[in-house]
């Protein structure tokens, strides 16, 4: 009897541990599809870009890869567009949203045109995001923002503090969205995922010419099928790359806030290596699709 109880306790503990594992979290938020081609790797995932953390036409690149992409300096407009997307695309509904935005040193999720005081800019609290996105069918929000763990601090989780004294907290020319008084975190079904380590996150700018010609052609074909024209450059975050690659070094977590501020940032060399692997990953997908097409043609 004792042995049975002990075994049961061990199994319970191990299963509880499994729920916290990064790969399990990621598999839930962004299930790996081994059959997805280069035009389908973003299916079910939406990406939100702050306008100053992207390059012109970047959303067209992500749309070609199957993502839903939103770029705006006003959170209200972004939320409206997510809402509309899931209505008019019943076959390509978004379940997971990746936020490529500022964290304002962990004082609020910020989207802005630029750093000018008068530029379009807005903020939103994490609880408000959960509250607004739940009715739209979003179930996971992945924060790829600066010191995102600090955004979950109880003091600002529901309602941001506009007088926090941080110089990066520039005027909210397009407003601040906080959770309503009736918001109940326990009942909300949107899971917020943050990096295991709270620090500066980076977005890397690449050129399409850096990809192999065959890969470029495959992405061009995908873009044409979705009636979009590819930009010359694209911007992709290190965290998004690591998630795409299922990088075992990527640590994700949920349900934990961080108080400490970190200035840790990846080195240029690490960024370059990561980008090269991303390019190779896209090349590999295209090569695999081509091989599969040849195989299918051979069997006919």
């Amino acid at each position: 009897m004792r042995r049975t109880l002990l075994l049961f306790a061990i199994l319970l503990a191990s299963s509880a541990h499994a729920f916290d594992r990064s790969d399990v979290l990621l598999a839930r938020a962004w299930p790996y599809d081994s059959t997805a081609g280069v035009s389908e790797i973003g299916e079910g995932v939406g990406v939100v870009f702050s306008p100053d953390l992207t390059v012109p036409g970047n959303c067209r690149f992500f749309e070609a890869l199957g993502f839903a992409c939103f770029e705006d300096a006003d959170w209200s407009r972004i939320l409206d567009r997510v809402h509309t997307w899931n209505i008019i695309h019943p076959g390509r509904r978004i379940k997971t949203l990746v936020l490529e935005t500022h964290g304002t040193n962990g004082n609020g999720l910020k989207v802005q045109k630029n750093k000018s005081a008068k530029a379009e800019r807005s903020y939103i609290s994490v609880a408000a995001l959960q509250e607004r996105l739940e009715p739209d069918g979003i179930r996971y929000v992945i924060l790829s923002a600066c010191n995102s763990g600090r955004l979950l601090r109880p003091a600002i989780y529901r309602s941001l503090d506009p007088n926090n004294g941080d110089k990066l907290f520039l005027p909210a020319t397009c407003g601040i969205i906080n959770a309503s008084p009736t918001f109940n975190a326990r009942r909300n079904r949107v899971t917020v995922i943050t990096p295991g380590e709270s620090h500066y996150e980076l977005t890397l700018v690449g050129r399409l010419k850096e990809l192999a010609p065959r890969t470029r052609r495959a992405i061009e074909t995908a873009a044409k099928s979705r009636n979009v024209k590819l930009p010359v450059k694209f911007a992709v975050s290190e965290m998004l790359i690591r998630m795409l690659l299922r990088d075992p070094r990527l640590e994700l977590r949920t349900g934990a806030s961080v108080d400490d501020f970190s200035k840790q940032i990846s080195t240029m060399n690490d960024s370059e290596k990561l980008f090269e692997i991303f390019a190779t990953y896209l090349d590999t997908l295209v090569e695999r699709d081509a091989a599969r097409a040849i195989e299918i043609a051979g069997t006919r």
Partner: protein
Amino acid sequence: MKKLHTTAFIAIAVLCVALWGCGTTKTTTETTTETTNSAANSGMASANTQAVPTGGYSNATGSLDASPEIGAVDAGRHAQAVQTAPTDQQLTTSSVAINNPSSTMNNRATTTTTTTTQVADNSLVQTQPITTSTETTTVTTPEPNIIEEPTTTTTTTTTDSSMTSSSTQQEDTTATTNAGRERLRKD
């Protein structure tokens, strides 16, 4: 004796009607509360801006315990949201009322897919070491669908050894590296 029976019967009947009346009133109250919560939960922007929180902090990130895959679904307020995929009729209703999110919340029910089986497929794409070879060439590359003039560039080819078996066109394996890559910091 007969009068006593009649009186008792009437008393029981009155009691039954009274109890039924209480039950109806309670149901009505619950329905009203449900509607209010649904509207509030839709998070209209006008009501949310700079709202003062009144509740306590609990389970901040909607942790996995609250995840529908694990089954911790609130039986009351969210019951409608986890039942079935939206029917054509529901989607039509939602499309009509795009500008009124609060009225469409319950119609936009979503299908919750279980990803447990897909965890097994969570293979790590880049876990295997990639052997690369480098070759420098000069090519002129016209790009019809890219907003850029054809240019002559010095390129470095990176070939993944794991892909060579499926490669069929050698002239397609050129790419450009960018040493001074632009990095945008999310601060």
